[in-house]
């Protein structure tokens, strides 16, 4: 695998829109070409090279291209948007929309990510070692078909409305999760190893949510039974779980909530 190294320079407060930082656009390009890719700084059309030192070499094929970002890019939005193949490693924290509309490949963030990471993701792997913001793996405004495939792993905590309108794929959160996890969910799996205060699975009509820690369950969920070491979408869970069906505010809802007991 060939590597392109991006080292952030001074980044402006206005925030950058950097949807061009993806292996698919880097592949087969020279360092110079990559450095001249478009980035928006506020209303200014700038070049990637204005904000990053670009080093290394890209492969002809995205799948053989790894982008390593050395440092913190909290102010940078949309890194890895629509990634189909290859790899991105961010050795710091990243801004909003990391891995938005991702279809394949792998993105790893060693620090935290801001909100809307993995928005309407369709495939690939998004790994966040720190915390995620709100709307992780969620649908875009108005879209009733959110995350459709792929896997999101968060080793820290996640914010509100994780997996909004999820219709496929998996989200695993090792820490705690904000309110409304899996709201309007239709398919797929969310595993919360920590706690989530309340309203998990609100208005869900399908799919599964597993909560290992504490949570208040909505009065519109109905207890079903206790399950030992259940297997859900290929995930083997250890221990005993009280299962609930819901959200019965909806008609004919078939969502399942697994609460560790």
């Amino acid at each position, binding site marked *: 695998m060939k590597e392109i190294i991006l080292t952030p320079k001074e980044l402006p407060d206005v925030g950058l829109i950097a949807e061009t930082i993806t292996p698919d656009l880097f592949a087969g390009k020279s360092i110079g070409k990559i450095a001249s890719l478009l980035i928006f700084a506020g209303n200014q059309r700038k070049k990637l090279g204005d904000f990053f030192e670009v080093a290394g070499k890209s492969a002809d094929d995205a799948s053989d291209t790894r982008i390593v970002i050395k440092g913190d890019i909290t102010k940078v939005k949309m890194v890895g948007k629509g990634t189909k193949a290859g790899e991105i490693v961010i050795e710091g924290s990243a801004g909003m929309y990391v891995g938005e509309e991702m279809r394949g490949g792998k993105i790893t963030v060693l620090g935290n990510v801001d909100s809307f990471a993995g928005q309407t993701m369709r495939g690939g792997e998004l790994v966040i070692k720190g915390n995620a913001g709100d709307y992780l793996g969620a649908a*875009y405004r*108005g*879209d*009733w078909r959110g995350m459709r495939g792929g896997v999101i792993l968060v080793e820290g905590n996640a914010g509100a409305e994780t997996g909004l309108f999820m219709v496929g794929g998996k989200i695993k959160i090792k820490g705690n999760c904000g309110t409304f996890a899996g709201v309007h969910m239709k398919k797929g799996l969310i595993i919360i190893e920590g706690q989530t205060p309340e309203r998990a699975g609100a208005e869900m009509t399908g799919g599964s949510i597993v909560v290992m820690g504490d949570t208040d369950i909505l009065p519109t969920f109905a207890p079903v039974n206790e399950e030992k070491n259940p297997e859900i979408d290929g995930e083997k869970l250890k221990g005993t779980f009280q299962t609930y069906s819901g959200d019965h505010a909806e008609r004919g809802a078939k969502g399942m909530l697994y609460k560790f007991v």
Partner: protein
Amino acid sequence: MASLIIKNGTVYDPANNVNGEKMDIYIKDGKIVEKAARGAKKIDCNGKIIMPGGVEIHSHIAGGKVNSGRLLRPEDHKKLVMPKTKLTRSGSGFSTPSTFMTGYLYSKLGYTTAMTPAMPPLMARHTHEELNDIPMLDKGSYPLTDGNWFIMRYLKDGDIEKAAAYAAWLLRSTKGFALKITNPGGTEAWGWGKNCKSLDDPVPYFDITPREIIKGLAEVNEMLGLPHSIHLHANNLGRLGNYETTIDTIKVPSGTKNKDRQTLHLTHVQFHSYGGDSWKNFESEAETVAKAVNKTDNAIIDTGNVTLDNTTTMTADGPMEYYLQSLTHFKWMNRDVELETAPGITPFIYSPKMSTAAIQWAIGLELGLLIKDPWKVLMTTDHPNGGPFTRYPRIISWLMSRPARDEMLEKVNAAAGKRSSLASIDREYDFNDIATVTRAGQARSLGLSETKGHLGIGAHGDVAVYDIDPDNMDPSKDFKGIEKAFSAAAYTIKGGEVLVRDGEIVKVTYGNTYWTNPHVDKSLEKEVLSDIEYNFKRYYSVNLANYPVQDKYVKNPIELKIDAQKVGA
């Protein structure tokens, strides 16, 4: 105003029986003239075809309902955006483009006129504000009269002249162009969550039937002598087995006559040609409907083709939109308008793999191909209901090429081949047919054929040029080339000004808004006005004085004054 000589093109001008002749077109002061004006700019169109500017008779491009559709679908807008340029404003929206973008997109297709067909009178101000923000086109809108309490009560009382006087007042108050009827009676019934299920199913509390409303308004329309006929969205849109209602409806105004045009324009008939009694045996009844249209001499239709896209449905047919969302469980908007009508909106995905969608796609094409006289079947998608108008070039390629249709029949759900007659139809449109169903026929139906939809002397200098060499291109084989050429006009010329060159906007203008102003007998008008005042005070939520659209809301009006003094005299 600019003068032009459009040279060496192959001209298709069906209204003047010009069918693919090489000839020059001269424009002076925005109008087509006999001979070249001194110093006129030359445009060489050798190896290109020339048609009158496109005329759109039914496309939801402006007004409260359209804007609710925009509000409802941010996820749709993300799919298609236009950045600002030195010349043009920015915009967004695939199925419900924003106003500026709507004008640019139509112009790129070679269109110069577009009518928005469903304006709730109480919301007329909004419709006009949006029309003012749609560039590149002449425009107009049709006030809705389907659930109108005044109309229903006058017709119930058999007071046809008062109904006519009221309709005249309504057109003036809304700066409207024609009378639109959407699911007659059904929209008032929807005020109670009900609907009118047949032409003889009475409206709750008003004790009048859809049949009586249609018949009455057709008479009103011809009494007033409006340019366009009644523009009817029939009852039972989208329902299984609705073709019977459709055929029944075509006969209703058969009593009324007009020497220049039809007395009934039946719109988006694809949605009204359904057979079967369950979605499992859902099938096309396009053949039956086409037969009925072929037989009648005073009704014409537009198709409402389905283009197999993810789109937004929006009609003033509230109960239908409710029914549709109850099938899909998609998000749903409803906007009942007091004393008038009941628009609704919900997204719909016509998936090619879905049998119903595939059959709907076939039905739209069957109608176009089975109705013999192209002047009787106009091409629309009922934008955005069957799909966005930006798909017209694709529909043109389907109409012009059997191989194009066969290729689709291979791709889409097999039901399209089995439960429609499309696979058995050989007919292929020629350029003259295309010019008829996208321009000439639409202009004639609107009653604007003096100045629009043709290239004869005195017509508007509205011209579309496409990069197609008819001598060296076989549309049947090169259907992809046809779609490409019609997607980006080589030139769109409006009023003698070049607005589009090679598919790019080169000049931005704002067209005129057409509205009709019939004058009936003064004393009758006074009587009706006192009825209006009495009912406004009690039942409307606004004062009468604040209801009529002020002149300032129509940017470049063209008022069509109509003397209807005989009404009431």
